[in-house]
């Protein structure tokens, strides 16, 4: 009689078994038990707490919501596990971006992996929101739903500083600003404009500017086109697996896996800031964002998040 070898104990826990973590788990956020530190991003304000000093384009990124994925036609959809997902929502304003951020610091350098199960949706139509006739919508053919073209982009990104400040960024461009289907992964070639640059008079962006990189010319594609699962209507939720690996030892990207496709990111550059920033030593922030290209709310749902490292 032989004794079965013990499996990886993580595989005995269904909440962890759906992930593929590196050696040390820093963060496991199950949104059935709260928001776990995911919070609205805001730009910086002055010493008086005067919110007028916050950059306009970083002043209204919207609070995250614990969502039961509730819809007008089926009621509560629920999350992949349990009832609640974290929802990030835009306003119904072209160019508006919703952003939730998770703030950590680094106790070492090396590989860092962000994993999540996500879904993305444009808002279903109502008489009040006018989505059925908003820009980007088209003719319904009982398969493809016009609302799919009303979803702009979702982004997973970082804000890291080890003395040098830099952002690793991946964006799924569902449509371009003209509502044309793209289904491409993108990265910015410039660092994100900061409140300090605004303070120094270098940039001044409008309220609906793309805060990650405002000029569309500063974005590049990587990897092959990847069609995801919107599942025809704005009220069906299917969860996608996303695994993204970066290396904070080399300030580089490694790879992005979304469902069954692995995109090699080793040649995808990570633009650093030229200038130094104070009070950010060992910064390790992750953010997720959702951006609408039409006057229809866009939603990004996260079932759960796991961040692991090899240090």
């Amino acid at each position: 009689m032989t004794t079965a070898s013990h499996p990886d104990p993580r595989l005995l826990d269904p909440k962890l078994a759906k992930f593929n973590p590196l050696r040390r788990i820093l963060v496991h956020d199950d949104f059935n038990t709260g928001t776990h530190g995911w919070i609205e991003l805001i730009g910086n304000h002055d010493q008086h707490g005067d919110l007028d000093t916050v950059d306009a384009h970083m002043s209204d990124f919207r609070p995250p919501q614990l969502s039961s994925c509730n819809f007008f036609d089926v009621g509560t959809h629920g999350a992949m596990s349990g009832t609640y997902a974290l929802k990030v929502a835009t306003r119904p304003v072209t160019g508006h971006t919703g952003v939730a951020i998770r703030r950590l610091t680094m106790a070492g350098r090396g590989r860092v992996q962000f994993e999540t199960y996500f879904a993305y949706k444009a808002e279903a139509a109502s008489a009040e929101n006018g989505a059925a006739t908003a820009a980007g919508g088209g003719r319904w053919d009982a398969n493809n739903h016009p609302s799919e073209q009303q979803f702009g982009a979702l982004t997973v990104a970082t804000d890291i500083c080890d003395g040098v400040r830099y952002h690793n960024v991946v964006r799924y461009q569902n449509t371009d600003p003209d509502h044309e289907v793209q289904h491409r992964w993108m990265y910015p070639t410039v660092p994100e404009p900061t409140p300090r640059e605004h303070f120094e008079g270098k940039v001044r962006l409008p309220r609906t500017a793309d805060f990650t990189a405002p000029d569309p010319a500063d974005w590049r594609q990587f990897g092959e086109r990847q069609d995801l699962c919107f599942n025809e209507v704005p009220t069906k939720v299917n969860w996608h697996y996303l695994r993204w690996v970066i290396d904070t030892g080399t300030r580089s990207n490694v790879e992005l896996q979304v469902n069954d496709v692995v995109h090699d990111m080793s040649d995808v550059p990570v633009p650093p800031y030229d200038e130094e920033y104070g009070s950010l030593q060992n910064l390790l922030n992750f953010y997720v964002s959702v951006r609408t290209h039409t006057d229809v709310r866009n939603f990004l749902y996260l079932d759960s998040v796991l961040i692991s490292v090899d240090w």
Partner: protein
Amino acid sequence: MTMRQSFTAVIERNATLTGEFTTEPYEAAWAREARWFVRVLDASGRAPRMLVRTQISPDGLHWCDLDRGAEQSVDPDEGPLHSWPAEGFGGWLRLRGTVVDEPAEATGDTASSLKVLIYLALKS
């Protein structure tokens, strides 16, 4: 005892409201308790104030007043911070309101405005 969950959402921050308005929908099905806070930062007009009702929705798309509940008056003359609870709200919450001033009710003038923060404090 299991620790209760709480979350405070800043539904509007440093927003200047005029005329009729609704706040963005907010999902709160997990919460047993909800309480609105409105903090007035600035006001313009002739004795401006905000008349507001809590609204609820089954889907975030279609809305009605919470149990035909009372209209709240947010009057800066009565202090900068105002609050009221919302109970039995189901899954979604928002505010519908109007910024008015004294002559506006007679003339339809909507020049008055309130600069506010609106918080939704939730607890399981």
